[in-house]
């Protein structure tokens, strides 16, 4: 468990600061790439929510699995996926995490336990409980974490998965990222009752609220409940309150937002909050600045590399479909 009085604690938080900054840089530079017409599809940014994925994954091992959703860049980076390969994926280039087959919504890196972003809401949950079941069956000492948006807690599979996790006592953590919006809809208006924590508790699942913009708070609770899961404590639920600073998707003009809301929330965003704390706790401003600079440099280089990388051969479209019946894919001549 995190010991926040230990002497290396600021260093631990600085590590998380680095990850958060890397994610932020990735999202900002991906947006530039999108605006420049380099991204074939669209992107969903994680800006303002970095603390959650970062602090949760800081408590996971490489052998643990995560399942993500459409807003998956931050989860992937936090779990250790390579940002350059991710940027190549966004640009549909050779060397992309999925070889250019998937794009932003289908980033996965199985080598670090990132089992995939997902374009269909809530499917990460049902697959997540299955992955946890596989770990149990294979007797592997690892756990699964599933990230789910607040809007998605109104889809049926969310509930089925919580029930399922409980009855089979699976080693799984559900992290609900409550950024107050589902696309253009304020989730409060379409979500009955006290909210996600109460819903999880209705299945007898231990559930916790956390300030998702405070990386240290998320770290502390994640550390505690993940240890608990590893020790056989069964499924746990973490409800992290945050705010989606950017539009839902790269094309979104956010006409539905009350004026001033975004600005107000910028004041609460996790990275500067973390920087403030670090500076108060012995990390120099210079170190912060150099962290920032190297994060942005890393991602700019990644974008350069992605731009320089070749496009895959179009004929790769016929690869990796399935083993059986490959003769009959009906290739265009």
């Amino acid at each position, binding site marked *: 468990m995190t010991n926040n009085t230990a002497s290396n604690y600021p260093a631990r938080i600085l590590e998380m600061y680095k990850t958060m900054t890397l994610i932020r840089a990735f999202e900002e530079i991906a947006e530039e790439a999108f605006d420049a017409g380099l*991204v*074939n*599809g*669209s992107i969903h940014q994680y800006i303002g929510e970095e603390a959650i994925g970062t602090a949760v994954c800081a408590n996971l091992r490489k052998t643990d699995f995560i399942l993500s959703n459409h807003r998956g860049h931050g989860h992937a980076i936090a779990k250790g996926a390579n940002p350059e390969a991710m940027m190549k994926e966004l640009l*549909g*280039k050779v060397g*992309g995490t*999925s070889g*250019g*087959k*998937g*794009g932003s*919504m*289908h980033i996965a890196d199985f080598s670090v336990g990132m089992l995939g972003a*997902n*374009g*269909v*809401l*809530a499917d990460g949950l049902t697959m997540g409980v299955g992955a946890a079941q596989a770990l149990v069956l294979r007797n592997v000492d690892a756990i699964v974490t599933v990230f789910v948006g607040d*809007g*998605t807690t*109104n*889809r*049926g599979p969310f509930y089925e998965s919580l029930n399922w996790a409980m009855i089979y006592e699976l080693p799984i953590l559900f992290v609900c990222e409550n950024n107050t919006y*589902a*696309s*253009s*809809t304020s989730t409060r*208006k*379409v*979500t009955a009752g006290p909210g996600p924590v109460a819903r999880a508790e209705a299945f007898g699942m231990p559930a916790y609220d956390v300030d998702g913009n405070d990386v240290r708070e998320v770290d502390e609770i994640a550390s505690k409940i993940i240890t608990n899961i590893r020790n056989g404590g069964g499924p746990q639920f973490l409800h992290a309150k945050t705010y989606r600073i950017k539009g839902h998707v790269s*094309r*979104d*003009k*956010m*006409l*539905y937002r009350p004026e001033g809301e975004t600005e107000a929330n910028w004041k609460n965003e996790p990275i500067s909050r973390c920087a403030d704390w670090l500076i108060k706790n012995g990390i120099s401003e210079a170190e912060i600045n150099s962290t920032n600079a190297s994060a942005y440099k890393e991602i700019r280089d990644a974008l350069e590399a992605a731009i320089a990388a070749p*496009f*895959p*051969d*179009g*004929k*790769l*479209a*016929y690869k990796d*479909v399935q083993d059986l*019946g490959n003769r*009959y*894919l*009906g*290739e*265009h*001549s």
Partner: protein
Amino acid sequence: MSMITMTQAAAVREGLAEEMRRDPLVWALGEDLSTAHGGTSADQYLGLIDEFGDKRIVNTPISENTIMGAAVGAAVAGTRPVADLRMADFGMCAVDELVNQAAKIRYMFGGQARVPLVVRQAIGVRKGGAAQHSQSTEAWYIHTPGLVVVAPATASDAKGLIKSAIRTDDPVVYMEHKDLWLAEGQVSDNPNDLIDIGKASIMRQGSDLTIVSWSKMALLSLQAADQLKSEGISAEIINLRSLWPWDKDTIYKSVSKTGRLLVAQESVQVAGFGAEISADISENLNHSLKTYVRRIGAPRTPVPYSEPMENEYRVTTTRIIKKAKELFSAP
């Protein structure tokens, strides 16, 4: 009456608004319907909530099963809902309610009830949409007894068909093409102009070859006809518009004349709707065919993301032309 230029998204919106004005029992439900720029960037519902209020333009939670199921229940209970699942890909989350309930209720209850509802589920490859945002599933619903399936190609189709879909007592799967939401076209402003479901439109008369298609492929086929013309082939282009029922009269007539048929579809060719048309024409028009029916469609692979692969995957005008010419080489 006059013709107005507007996008297909606006044409459907106009059609819906006219029907909502005409009949207070018509209403719409789906995710992000009530916000400007909500959900998709096409503004299919822009402003409707201001005119009709939140009891008739219902912004729903992310609950596909219930969007579809509630629409069925509301249809059975005397209203005429338009349920928007936004994309056929998400429509997969509500196949049960559509196929097991909407399609069967009239039948299995012996005619006691009707299910007058429209399900909007956009189809088609969207640039960079990849595997889960670019699927075309019309063949599934054509295969499902009890359902009507329409797929507009032009803004005029879009408006006329949504109005007819709302007025019929049958459940209608209304499949727009995501790539055509922002395509502009001429649309009648007469609220009484409908397009009969089951009636195809002949977009171009021709004598050597019939190309049957629907949705975006009808527009590509029309382009193909231009090129073919310059090469001395006169292609008749039929935009089906309605996939079930489909306009056999018009197609039989055309094929009887041309003796050659190509079906151009954007969806996966294997077990796609083109197979049904091909089999049907073989069965019913075999004597008129100068050569066997050809099909073109997507390969049997998921939709890839990266542009070169996406281009490899797509059914293009060039590919339609190439396939069309095959009908003029040895059978």
